[in-house]
């Protein structure tokens, strides 16, 4: 009897895990609480639009066609900023992480620039890049570059000495060979983590990047120039959820595709 109960318990847990029942159940409960609180306690669609109102707004916006255009424009801004941030972040992070002199030269500049919020760069984005997609990309770049740079730096600084010594014993003595064959692969987990964090931060910056007339579409543009101006809180909430879902998708892509495929060799880790 005890064995049967134990077996049943195991089967139920396995079923719940496989079919993501727990995640679905918790989401449904959250939606239920949201609907109840909005409809019966707050009773003010401006302060808290209900789930059903937001769902209706979602389908209205989807059928109007603007939502797809807005998502694509925002992804364009993210791509511009993230591509440049990845190139610059990896390059500068690798150089400063590997060469001590370069680290001492760049460190004060990086540490002064790093805490400046991306929003503070908006006037310079307008002045330097005018009202173009590149200006929006620049704001994303400012947000994304430092997590990538700092993680790459950490990756190169933490290359195990034993790997370098072994490579040198095996004849890998040239600097660029050491970087290519030892340091870069060793730092790759740090770099991918940096890109993952940078993507999240960059995506947060997209909303701010579209506030100042760089385009006539985009999730941030629509939120600030339309929904906020017209106090359309249900539409605003739809776009906030879309921002969250896209961020979740991008993060999942990194976690399950890049980290599991690209870093397959890293099997002997805790997580």
């Amino acid at each position: 009897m005890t064995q049967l109960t134990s077996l049943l318990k195991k089967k139920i847990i396995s079923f719940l895990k496989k079919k993501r029942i727990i995640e679905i159940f918790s989401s449904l409960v959250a939606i239920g609480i949201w609907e109840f609180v909005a409809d019966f306690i707050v009773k003010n669609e401006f302060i808290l639009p209900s789930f059903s109102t937001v769902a209706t707004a979602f389908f209205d916006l989807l059928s109007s066609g603007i939502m797809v255009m807005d998502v694509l424009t925002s992804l364009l801004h993210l791509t511009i900023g993230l591509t440049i941030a990845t190139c610059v972040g990896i390059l500068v992070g690798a150089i400063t992480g590997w060469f001590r002199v370069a680290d001492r030269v760049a460190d004060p500049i990086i540490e002064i620039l790093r805490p400046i919020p991306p929003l503070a760069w908006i006037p310079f984005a307008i002045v330097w890049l005018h009202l173009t997609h590149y200006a929006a990309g620049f704001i994303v770049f400012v947000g994304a570059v430092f997590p990538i740079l700092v993680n790459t730096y950490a990756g190169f600084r933490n290359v195990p000495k034993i790997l370098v010594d072994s490579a040198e014993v095996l004849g890998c003595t040239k600097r660029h060979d050491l970087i290519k064959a030892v340091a870069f692969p060793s730092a790759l987990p740090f770099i991918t983590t940096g890109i993952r964090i940078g993507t999240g931060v960059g995506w947060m910056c997209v909303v701010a990047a579209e506030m100042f007339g760089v385009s006539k579409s985009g999730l941030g543009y629509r939120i600030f120039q339309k929904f906020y101006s017209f106090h359309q809180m249900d539409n605003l909430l739809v776009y906030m959820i879309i921002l969250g879902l896209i961020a979740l998708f991008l993060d999942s892509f990194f976690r399950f595709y890049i980290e599991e495929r690209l870093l397959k060799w890293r099997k002997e880790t805790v997580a």
Partner: protein
Amino acid sequence: MLIVTVTALVIAAVSFLVPKNQSLTHLRIGYQPSTHQIAHMTAMEKEWWRESLAKFGINEVSDYEFPSGPPEMQAMLAGDLDIAYVGATPPITAIYEGLDAKIVAGVQIQGSHLVLRLEVDYTGPDDLRGLKVATFPPGSIQDTVLRKWLIDNGLDPENDLEIVAMGAGEAISAITAGAVDGVFLPHPSPVVIELEGSGRMVVGSGEMWLNHTCCCLVVSGRLIREYPDVVEQIIRIHINATKYNKDHPDEAAEIYARKVGWEVETVQYSLDTWDGYWVSDPRIGLNVTLEYAQVIYDLNKTRYDRVLTEEELFDTSFYDSIIEKET
């Protein structure tokens, strides 16, 4: 334990979200740092708000500065403001979305300028073809006035030129950097651009749309229903402050300069060159405001089922009562 914690958090959050009804001892005023709204600044500096409302039990008056109308109305929708000096279109959009408030007095008419970069030749509206002009977002007074003027002059705002939406600060940066060819902004921003040498004022908004409404005084529905005496006194203070500013424009410029930290000469130059004028009668801008309500409806046809009426937007009874008592 987890359930108890979650329940407590939900209750705390909900109690924070649900607006509370409190007696009126603290008047909260919203305004923007614009020369259009000096009436409020004069009443504040001279302590007319505090002194004249004390007899109604109001022992504290606070003013809150907003960069533009939408966040100001957002604050009013959230119940954080009792009265607001604001452009006429933000309250319309807010009332469409359920704001319990009415326009009770006028504040100012006209007062914006089209500014073009120095190298752009301008002899008439046709010269704007192919240019990029920055202004406030769709639904704002500036966007509405500019688009109407372009259409009146045979230009298609969507195809003949590019209108880009942004705030005043970004627009000033954009014209200075040459990112746009012109801007259409309320005063004093046009003067800032002209004095910096980045552009010149070419058309006043009164030339675009004669006597178009700009700012107004909005009072919450709660005050109108529960504290009509206070509302009447608020409007009386506003009327007096407006009259005082008209009679003492130099002092009005000084009050504004002190409030926002500007040079007095710059403010005086703005008041000398603008085509705006301060008012208090809500009827002066009433018809134009109703036209704005139509424009905002046209922009959101799929969302709104009707155009707001005069009764839904205005309450002129307080102003009328004050004038009647005075005459």
